[in-house]
């Protein structure tokens, strides 16, 4: 439910139609493009010289690329939370958030696929995975489930957008490139009853099927770690732990995007304080849930403190990684919970800051899941160069990682430039229904 009942259909259309970038939009997009280009140059260097340009060595063979991959997979889960779960449970107020959630999911999962290729020393050998992949390998399961989720997310973005496309065709300049693109995508949508029936059926099917697929993508990603016998990864809890963390970072990402789009496109009438308030409560619940799984993941092994686990756990609690560990726990979970428990904390600006906290905390949390374990092998590290015992990413790794994050943001930005970030037709329909209900 939103406060659009008093707004006319024409006003809604003009408010929600994509608008050209203003000065801040142009600067923002340019910065993202520059970051992507720097990432591209760094990747070119990596292709030329090999993975030796990274800080990864024999022990820390997974660094920030894989952390970033897990982060992207996690944030993509938001598509199923906001769009599917809320839709199935008739959460009416989620309408303005569904498309934001879906485009975050699509861009994140797209860059998750790309970053995993970046992590390969010989990317051209990806083809061998298709030719010689073994179904026994969780990596093959991950490739299958990521591809499936990407296709489903694209369909989930596209099908509910069909009723908006004729509006975009009508409002765009006839014969322009944009007009042609909109026409290609949706000129066939006439809004007939038969078309609505089919599209509603399609949306319902995706809504149902995307939930297990979304859970599978993150569970399988957790199995990439949990199916190996290593301190910190050897856990039966990993699937649920990953899924709960993914829901949290996804919701945090949506909160940040809500605030930015609300500000940039002046959508205060559509993304209201009530939306922030409700998303704030959801964030508290998800942060507490993730905190619960974290306690399980760290407290139980720490209580037993098996010799092999000791180096890993002490590295996190009071050693090399303690600063990042406690910051991620505090910034990514504890502080948001405390702040968002109070109604004042659920105001848009505070929510934006807490959303950023959650997202940044979540990124570093993924790093903590991936790398410290690799630096705590069961067999002690003997007779290896000093730099093999630690991991610090090189500028190439940082550039590629930042470039990939910028790339995902660029997709979201460009999508919002050319497509309505809040569903126009659905909002008009909802407004009309509300009016009828009020009468």
């Amino acid at each position: 439910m939103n406060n659009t009942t008093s707004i006319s259909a024409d006003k809604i259309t003009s408010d929600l139609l994509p608008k050209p970038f203003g000065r801040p939009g142009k600067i923002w997009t340019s910065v993202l493009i520059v970051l992507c280009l720097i990432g591209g140059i760094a990747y070119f260097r990596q292709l030329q010289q090999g993975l030796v340009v990274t800080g990864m060595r024999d022990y820390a063979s997974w660094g920030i690329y894989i952390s970033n991959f897990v982060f992207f997979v996690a944030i993509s889960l938001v598509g199923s939370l906001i769009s599917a779960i809320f839709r199935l449970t008739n959460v009416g107020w989620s309408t303005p958030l569904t498309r934001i959630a879906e485009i975050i999911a699509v861009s994140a999962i797209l860059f998750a696929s790309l970053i995993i290729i970046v992590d390969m020393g010989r990317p051209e050998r990806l083809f061998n995975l298709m030719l010689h992949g073994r179904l026994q390998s969780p990596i093959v399961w991950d490739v299958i489930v990521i591809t499936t989720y990407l296709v489903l997310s694209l369909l989930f973005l596209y099908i509910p957008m069909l009723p908006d496309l004729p509006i975009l065709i009508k409002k765009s300049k006839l014969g322009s490139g944009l007009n042609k693109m909109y026409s290609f995508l949706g000129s066939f949508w006439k809004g007939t009853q038969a078309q609505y029936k089919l599209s509603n059926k399609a949306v319902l099917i995706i809504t149902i099927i995307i939930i297990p697929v979304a859970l599978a993508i993150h569970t399988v990603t957790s199995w990439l770690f949990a199916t190996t016998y290593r301190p910190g990864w050897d856990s039966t809890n990993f699937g649920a732990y990953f899924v709960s963390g993914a829901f949290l970072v996804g919701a945090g990402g949506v909160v940040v995007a809500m605030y930015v789009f609300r500000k940039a496109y002046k959508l205060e009438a559509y993304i209201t304080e009530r939306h922030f308030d409700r998303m704030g409560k959801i964030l508290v619940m998800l942060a507490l849930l993730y905190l619960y799984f974290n306690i399980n993941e760290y407290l139980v092994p720490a209580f037993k403190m098996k010799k092999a686990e000791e180096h890993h756990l002490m590295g996190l609690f009071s050693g090399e990684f303690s600063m990042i560990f406690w910051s991620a726990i505090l910034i990514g979970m504890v502080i948001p919970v405390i702040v968002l428990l109070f109604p004042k904390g659920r105001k848009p600006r505070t929510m934006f800051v807490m959303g950023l906290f959650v997202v940044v905390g979540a990124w570093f949390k993924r790093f903590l899941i991936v790398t410290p374990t690799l630096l705590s092998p069961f067999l002690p590290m003997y007779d290896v160069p000093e730099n093999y015992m630690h991991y610090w990413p090189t500028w190439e790794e940082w550039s590629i990682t930042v470039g990939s994050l910028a790339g995902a943001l660029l997709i979201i930005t460009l999508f919002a430039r050319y497509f309505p970030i809040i569903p126009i037709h659905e909002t008009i329909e909802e407004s009309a229904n509300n009016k009828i209900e009020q009468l």
Partner: protein
Amino acid sequence: MKQSAYFTIIIVVFLLSTVGRLHAQDENLQAPIRIALAYYQTDEALPLIKVTASTKKNKKFVPVPGAEVNLFINEETVEGFMGRVTTHDQGSASMTLPSKFKTRWDSLISFKFIGTVTGNKQFEDQAAEIELTKARITLSLTEEDSIRTIKASLHTYTDSGLVSVPETDLLLVVSRLLSDIGAGEEEFYTTDENGEVSIPFVYKFPGDGAGNILIGAKVEDHELYGNLKATQKIPWGSPMKADHSFAKRSLWATRDKTPIWLLIFPNLLIIGVWGTIIYLINLVLKIRKLGKTSDISNN
């Protein structure tokens, strides 16, 4: 002018002579090389001569790879020339006595092998030799009342026939793929007045498919007899069953041996989900078709 010309000639002559001396010194800068020969004889086979070449560098002996060593039996003549070997990276090389010498070698009781390095640009000429007396080990493996016994005897050849060799250390071993394992509790056993040693064999080693293992007795680095070894195959080991589990369907096998359950369930899921995706795409195509049909009917 005349004086300076003489002076120039003297300098040129001096320089040329100096260069010439230096060149001559270069030629004489050949390093000393050390050659060592070792003699190995197993069962009734022709003996094998192992050559090791080393040189001193920084007060340490280091192996010399690529050194050509001429090998001779008994005399450094064309008749005694066995052949030439080239040392490998670890500085050693070996040669089995060529079969053309078999008759001659069979008739010998004492013999010597000579190794020479000649005409090498890097190293000085060098020669080494080993003198040996022919000996043989006889191995006897018996089993009585489930007691297995290894008995070995050492004899040397003399003009009056075979004579037993007492007070000599023999090693009793089980030959494995890469090295030998002791067949008894001691590292070696000393022959008695009859030149014999005897021990009970109590161990169970993995054997081949029929349980065969190779038991041996050997003399190592003896100054008179060199390295001798006698071996005998006997089914005193436990038959080995080859592990073919890699060829079975398992999580660690190749892709064509994926476990059936792992083929069925994930593929059912994949077919189910992708079937639904295809159905969804079909719905979109139907929506598209409906739109186009409506266009035509409106026109």
